[in-house]
């Protein structure tokens, strides 16, 4: 900045600067207040999980900490089984999703054939006609496959994910055609090109899709509620809802402990890989 323009304005500029910094300060304060309000429910639950029900209700900050709630919760519901079910179902679903969506996305991105635009449009229809809206009909369909109360039953409606196909198609289309041509000259088959050229280059998209899909299906509730009816396949969300239902009658401290057990694995993963998670959501949204 040149001296000449700076000098005449000194007085008013410093006034404006104080006004600006006051505004900035109040802005940041407001941000922190909202941020605090936003985590308050979680902090409260965390605190309540380590205190007896009555201490939690009266919010007695001097009350002693204890692990009793966790012991009770642990004894009252098969949390390990629920978590295992969720883990197994999500693993199955994610590996199927990635296989099916990779193949379809490759055809839609890099194979010229008649009616490709139409096929793509039909695939995208699933973004609107989503499995959540079709629970009644999909229940009957899964019953036909004899897959009620199985991991397959929970996973199947979500395997051909239009969102996954869309993201991967986008990623494949950005791979330069010359790379494919060079690999073909080297003697790779078309499927070989897909596996050795396209898939490795789309790694960031795979990661983004995997994390978004993982957190969605780890937390999914309505469809698993409909399609499971025993502990054999019931995921953690449905298990948690049963655990908290009024018929079971657990007190607030035990319910907090149970909720904490239920959310701990995904939350721990999220806190460890925070950057990747948020980046994945950002990438998925920008496409």
């Amino acid at each position, binding site marked *: 900045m040149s001296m000449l323009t700076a000098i005449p304005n000194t007085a008013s500029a410093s006034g404006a600067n104080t006004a600006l910094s006051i505004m900035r300060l109040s802005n940041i304060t407001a941000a922190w207040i909202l941020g605090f309000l936003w985590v308050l429910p979680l902090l409260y639950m965390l605190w309540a999980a380590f205190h007896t029900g009555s201490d939690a209700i009266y919010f007695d900050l001097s009350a002693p900490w204890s692990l009793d709630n966790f012991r009770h919760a642990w004894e009252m519901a098969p949390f390990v089984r629920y978590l295992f079910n969720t883990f197994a179902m999500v693993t199955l679903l994610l590996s199927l999703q990635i296989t099916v969506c990779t*193949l379809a996305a490759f055809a839609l991105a890099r194979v010229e054939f008649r009616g490709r635009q139409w096929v793509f449009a039909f695939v995208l229809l699933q973004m609107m006609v989503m499995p959540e809206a079709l629970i*009644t009909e999909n229940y009957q369909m899964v019953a036909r496959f004899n897959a009620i109360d199985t991991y397959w039953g929970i996973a199947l409606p979500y395997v051909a994910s239009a969102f996954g196909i869309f993201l991967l198609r986008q990623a494949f289309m950005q791979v330069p055609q010359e790379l494919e041509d060079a690999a073909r000259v080297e003697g790779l088959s078309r499927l070989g090109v897909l596996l050795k050229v396209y898939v490795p280059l789309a790694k960031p998209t795979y990661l983004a899709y995997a994390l978004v899909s993982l957190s969605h299906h780890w937390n999914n509730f309505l469809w698993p509620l409909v399609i499971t009816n025993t502990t054999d396949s019931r995921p953690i969300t449905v298990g948690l809802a049963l655990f908290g239902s009024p018929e079971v009658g657990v007190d607030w401290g035990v319910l907090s402990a149970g909720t904490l057990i239920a959310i701990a694995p995904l939350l721990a993963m999220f806190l460890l890989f925070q950057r990747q998670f948020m980046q994945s959501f950002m990438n998925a949204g920008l496409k």
Partner: protein
Amino acid sequence: MPNTLLNSMRSSNFAFAWMLLLPAMVLLSCFTYFPAFSAFYNSLFATDFSGARHFALQDNLLDLYYDPVFWRALTNNLWYALITVPASMILALVMALWVNEKFLGRSLLRLSFFLPTMLPMVAAANIWMFFYSPNIGLFNRVLAVFGIQGANWLGDPSTALWATMLLAIWKEAGFFMIFYLAALQAIPSELNDAARLEAPGYFYRLRRFILPLLGPTTLFVFINAVIHAFKVVDHLFILTKGGPNNASTLLLYYIYETAFAFFDAGYAAILTMVLLLLLGLCSAIQFALSHKRVHYR
């Protein structure tokens, strides 16, 4: 000769493409196209006592028309969308503008806003259930400090729906913040600097420069928020079960009840068609807007 070569390549392409598409198309047929068609078909026809199918669209529409719970669920859902969508979008934008600035502890703040998104709705509802409870609930106890008589938030028909909305806004705002944040970070810094020189006033810059650039993101977030308002009903299972007296029921929750508590698959199919029509309307709006005003890269 080159013509036949081209033809054979085309047909081999065709076979190869469909081989790749086969698994996805089979699954989509089983769990999207056929079920949607089946819901459509079942809303047109009915089976009478002798087992014969007959055209019954009129009867089915009259059933809808005379079903007060359906109208309750529909108006509730429209109010639910009308309140939660703008509220969580505005909060999301404000949060994103905040955490896009540089200051100490920014990533902690970003985390605080985003954290509710990572919880299952059921777990979030468990926490909020306690806040809302009439005698021991946190809300009423805080209000009592100020000498205000609290309410039975979930048990009172006039507040139950609002209580579910508040939870939804808390849960979703941080999710939509991420998309706004991504868009803000995508604005090139030279452009930002130029705008700062041209217009030093923050709100002027926000209105004339930042918000227009966020147009496509706003459309994306808007459509997603509306879809969420119609497809996320998990919290109702914990908080209100649609009650009291259907005061907080939503369309998808009513579909669930009709099919799996009242075992009326036929009527559930008609309700499903209504939901699909609403979702279709959303997509049509998105399509129209994205081609008109909002420019895509």
